[in-house]
Structures are given as structure tokens and as C-alpha cells.
């Protein structure tokens, strides 16, 4: 009996304490929505993007929240799992807007973006899309912001670097999901326009294959000089590793979904990915904001941050500043309109990729940096230096 009494007393005390804490921090809350894959094969990717938002929200709230016309708002991230499925993303979008009243919804995939675009203008919320497919912002949706650069910006420099170094014969061995297909559709014509030829094309399902030996050996039997690979980093690493085991000596074009440092971890070190070109891994970047972000990330996490986390971290700050500039946490149109001013209000420490502009259609623009593995080291080069415009 005494035990039960103690339990009751503790419960009452806790309730009182919580009530008082609530009374002290009576700050208003603004909900920010997220729908992305949080379970299943793409769970890691979804978690990485969401973690960027959480880190930013924590930092903003730690500094007293955002100040909108004299009212302090705390940022509260409401995340829902859509298992990478556009239809679930649409359901989640509706739920977020109706139940949590979110003025902004983040999503890390193109399918989810298209699904949300079907009703975001009518329901009045801003879609922050983490995908590099150009068509996301080409359809005239006025409440969409695309966070990373267009993947098509990489086609020419990737082609030039690998073709000059290894030769004109390309083997296609990337994944089979939608994003990989968009890449193939843009990359293969680019390669051919530069005078190259495609000697083998054998995309593989990176998520559903237990083993890549068969597919890789099929592509290698056509003797390509360069392999076009990509999907999630780790399976890409397996493909690279198995290609090397089967005696491939050429270079790799790595789709931007995969990060060269993560690919190398699985493939057997940077020597194994010699001659690979891909997007710059955050840890190699020499932007001051990137170094700050890596430091911040390492404080609370094991391992190194990915660009997904960094871009979403920045995008959360951008939205917060845009709300302050617009003087509203509800009107999505006003928030979108305030993004150009907000870009200069985000400090360099919160902007690892040094994003400076936004196009009218909603593309955030950066001068893209590309990583190439030369003699077992990662070399960074700006697109303009490569001379492949």
C-alpha cells in the first residue's frame, strides 16, 4: 500500500512540475511537416533527411525560437512515414495539414513531391522538396521549393572527366528505381553527344538483388572503359567492389544519390574507387559552413553527416528565416515570397553548401562542386573549371 501511495505522490508531483514547466514556456508552436521513408529499405535515407530538420529545429529552439512580429515561436517537427510511396505521401500531406496545421511540408523524394503538388496550392502549404529532378519545379507549382541542384547539371562534367581519362565505351550498371531511370535518360544521350558509345546496358535492382555478380559480369563482358553506377551508397559500393573483383580497371560515374566516401567504405577504400566521379562528400568540402556542420553533427552522432542531412538542415533554417521575413507562420504564399530575402538572412554557419539564389520557379541554386578520385585521393573541382559547359 505504501508503495502505491509513493507512486501516486510521484505521479502528482510530476504532473504538477510538467504543468508549471508548461506555464513558464508558454511560447507558441509552429508545426513543420515531414513525410518520407522511415521504415523499409530507404529508411536510412529518410532518417538522414529528417535528422537535418531536427538538428536545425533543436538549434533554433535552443536560441529562443523564431521571432515573428514580436511573437516567439518554437519549431515542432511532425514526421510521418510514407515508406517511399507517393500515395502514402499524399495521405500524410493531408493529415499534416488538417491535423497539425503545417504551413510547410518537407519530403525527400520526387514521387512524394508530385503527389503533394496535386493539392498543395489549394490547401495552402509550401512543399520543400529534397530531390534533384528538374521537372519538380518545371510544372509551374507556385508553392514548391527544390532544395538540391538539378542532377542534369552533373551530366556534362561527369562525362568529360571520365571520358578523357578512361575512354569512350560506357557500361550502364545503375539501379532500376525511378530516379535512376531519370538519370539514365539524361546521362546516356549526354555521353553519346560527347562522342561516346554505350556498349552494355544492364540496370539492376539494387534493393531486391541478393547479389550483383551476375549483372556486373554481364556488363563487363562487353569491355567498357567506364561504368555508370548508382543507387543508395552501400549497394553501389558492392557493385564497385564486385566489378573490381571481376577485373575491371576503368573509371566510375557515380549517380548523385551515392556518396563517394560511403561507396569507398563498402568497396574497399578509396583505391577501389580510383577514377570515380561523383558529388562532393560533405566531409571533403572546404566551405566554412560545411566544417561547422560536420563539427555540430559529430557532437551528437557517430560517423559523418551526409549531404542529405546538411541540405535539410539548411532548408529548415531557410524556412525559419523566411517566416520571420514574411511575418507569418501561416501564409505559405508569403513565406515562399520571402525566401529570396531569407537566403541572405541565413548565416554562413547554417549554409554548408553556400546556396545563394533561388530561381522564380523555386530552384535553389549553387555553383556545383564535383569530386574525382585521383591516385587514391579525393580532388574537388568546380563545374566551371572543368570546362564542360
Amino acid at each position, binding site marked *: 500500500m505504501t508503495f502505491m501511495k509513493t507512486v501516486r505522490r510521484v505521479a502528482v508531483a510530476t504532473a504538477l512540475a510538467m504543468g508549471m514547466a508548461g506555464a513558464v514556456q508558454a511560447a507558441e508552436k509552429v508545426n513543420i511537416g515531414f513525410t518520407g521513408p522511415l521504415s*523499409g529499405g530507404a*529508411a*536510412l535515407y529518410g532518417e538522414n533527411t529528417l535528422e537535418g530538420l531536427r538538428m536545425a529545429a533543436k538549434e533554433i529552439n535552443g536560441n529562443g525560437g523564431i521571432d515573428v512580429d514580436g511573437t516567439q515561436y518554437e519549431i515542432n517537427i511532425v514526421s510521418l512515414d510514407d515508406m517511399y510511396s507517393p500515395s502514402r505521401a499524399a495521405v500524410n500531406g493531408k493529415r499534416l495539414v488538417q491535423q497539425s496545421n503545417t504551413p510547410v511540408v518537407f519530403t525527400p523524394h520526387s514521387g512524394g513531391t508530385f503527389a503533394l503538388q496535386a493539392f498543395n496550392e489549394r490547401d495552402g502549404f509550401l512543399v520543400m522538396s529534397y530531390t534533384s529532378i528538374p521537372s519538380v519545379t518545371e510544372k509551374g507549382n507556385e508553392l514548391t521549393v527544390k532544395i538540391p541542384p538539378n542532377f542534369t547539371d552533373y551530366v556534362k562534367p561527369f562525362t568529360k572527366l571520365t571520358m578523357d581519362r578512361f575512354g569512350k565505351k560506357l557500361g550502364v550498371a545503375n539501379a532500376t528505381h525511378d530516379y535512376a531511370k531519370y538519370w539514365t535518360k539524361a546521362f546516356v544521350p549526354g555521353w553519346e553527344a560527347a562522342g561516346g558509345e554505350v556498349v552494355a546496358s*544492364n540496370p539492376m535492382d539494387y534493393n531486391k538483388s541478393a547479389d550483383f555478380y551476375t549483372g556486373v*559480369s*554481364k556488363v563487363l563482358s562487353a569491355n567498357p572503359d567506364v561504368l555508370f553506377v548508382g543507387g543508395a551508397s552501400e549497394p553501389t559500393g558492392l557493385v564497385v567492389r564486385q566489378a573490381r573483383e571481376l577485373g575491371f580497371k576503368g573509371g566510375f560515374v557515380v549517380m548523385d544519390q551515392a556518396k563517394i566516401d560511403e561507396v569507398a567504405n563498402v568497396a574497399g577504400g578509396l583505391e577501389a574507387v580510383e577514377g570515380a566521379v561523383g558529388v562532393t562528400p560533405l566531409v571533403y568540402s572546404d566551405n566554412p559552413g560545411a566544417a561547422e556542420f560536420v563539427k555540430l553533427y559529430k557532437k551528437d552522432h557517430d560517423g559523418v553527416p551526409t549531404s542529405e542531412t546538411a541540405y535539410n538542415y539548411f532548408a529548415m533554417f531557410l524556412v525559419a528565416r523566411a517566416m520571420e521575413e514574411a511575418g507569418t507562420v501561416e501564409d505559405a504564399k508569403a513565406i515562399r515570397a520571402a525566401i529570396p530575402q531569407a537566403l541572405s538572412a541565413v548565416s554562413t554557419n547554417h549554409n554548408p553548401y553556400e546556396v545563394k539564389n533561388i530561381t522564380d520557379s523555386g530552384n535553389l541554386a549553387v555553383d556545383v562542386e564535383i569530386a574525382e578520385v585521383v591516385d587514391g585521393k579525393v580532388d574537388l573541382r568546380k563545374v566551371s573549371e572543368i570546362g564542360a559547359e
Partner: protein
Amino acid sequence: MDLFLQQVLNGLTLGSIYGLVALGLTLVYGILHVPNFAHGALYMVGAYVCYFTMADLGLNYWVAIAAAAVVVAAMSVICERLVFHPLRHAPPIHDKIAAIGILLFLEAVVQMYWGADFRRIASPYNQILQLGGLTLPAQRLLIIVGAFSLMGALHLYLKKTMTGATIVAMAQNREGAFLVGIDANRVAMMTFAIAGALAAVAAGLFAPINLVYPAMGHLVLLKAFVIIILGGMGSIPGAIIGGLIIGFSEALGGFYLSSTYKDVIAFVLLVVILSIKPTGLFTKGVR
């Protein structure tokens, strides 16, 4: 010719892993009379135990595989005691739902504790043998040899020992087994333990050439289901031969036809075999 032999080797590697997983599934089918959906999760847990024994405790690869086998066998027995045994008089659908529940539970627990990250078990055998134009990584040879010796050992155990014979008897006819005085509890626990250990060893062998992540069991489980349907539910030779059929069809079909359609090839095979022998290749005629 080299290319063909290379594909045969790939087929053997895949087939022997699929076969090992399917063997456990088929054995448990003999007890439960429903497919055990949790088997893929046991496979995944086996890979994680193997990974952490190596990465955190710094133990040898073989010790890690043995540890995984013991831990997963114990987990499998616990599942039987806590979940399937109390359901033994319930309709089969309850077993199915319970099995799916275990699958989701184990996956969620693993993801909660260790995150969704891909991990990699470093193989202690990184040598690559070259035979003419044939590439033979040591780990792949190890998979083939390991899997087939385990299958051989299991065969001997079931055929030559008394305990093995009781397992076979239970699978063939439950009432008959009771009549001759076989202790059903003991046999059920034994079968679950063997099935768990097989899944864990398969995971330990295969993980070094693959990745370790919470959803890794789905794919292998799906193949194992196809295999036991193809080979005949509850049939041991069926699981082994079925494993090889799927392994070879993936490797050869993927190479000579198209990797995009390699799963289609496996399923077309399934349809063809089932339309000729609707009960699967090796059925015991008792159910």
C-alpha cells in the same frame, strides 16, 4: 565458356544460401503447418549478432557465426514456447498472424537499437583465386562448401539419429508420432532451434559479400517461400534442389536474358513446375 562457368558458380553461391534458409523454413513447416514468416527476421538477427560479435567484441569470424547460431536458435525456441506453443490448438491463421507479428517486432527492435544504417561484415578471407578466366573469391567458395556441408550434416542427423527420426516422424504425421510416444514439445523446440541456427549460419556466411540492415531478411525470405512451394512444403530434398533451381535461374537467366527479368524467370519456373506437379517437386504425400 569461362563466362558460363562464372555464372554456374554464382548460381551455386546463391542457391546454397537460399537452400539453407529454405531448409529451416521447411522444417518448421512440418511442425506449424503454416509458413513461418518470422524466419526472415531470424536470418536478419543472425547477421546482426554476427556483426556485433566481430565488431564490438573483436572475436573471430567463426566464433561469431557460432554465437549467432546459438543466440538465434535460443530466440527461435523462445518464439516457439511463448507464441506458437500456446497457439497449437488455434486455427492456422493465428500462427500466421503471430509469425508476422514477430517479424515486425524483431525488425522494429533492431532498427530502434542499431538504426537503419547499412553495416558490413569484413570477411577474413579476402583472397581472390583466378582459375583461367574464372574469378573465385574465397568467401564465395566458403559459402558453397559451408552450406553444403551443413546440409549434409543435417541429412545425417535426421536419418541416422533417434532425435532426427522423431523430427521427421512429427512432420509426417503428428497423431502417429504421439501414438508411438514421441514428446511433441521436445521435438518442436528442437526443430525451431535447428531452423534458427540454420538461418543464422546462412546469414553469417552470406553477410560478408552483402550488407547488414534491418530489412535484409525480406528478400531472402521471399525466395525461400518460392523455394519451399517449388520443392514441396515440408520436403528437405525439395528445399535444397529448389534453392539450387532458383539460384541457377537467377544467375543464368540474369546473365543470358536480362537482370531486370531475373525474378520473373524464377516465378515463371514456379508456375511451370506447379502446373505440372501442383504439390511441388518432392511431396511426401502426407499432409
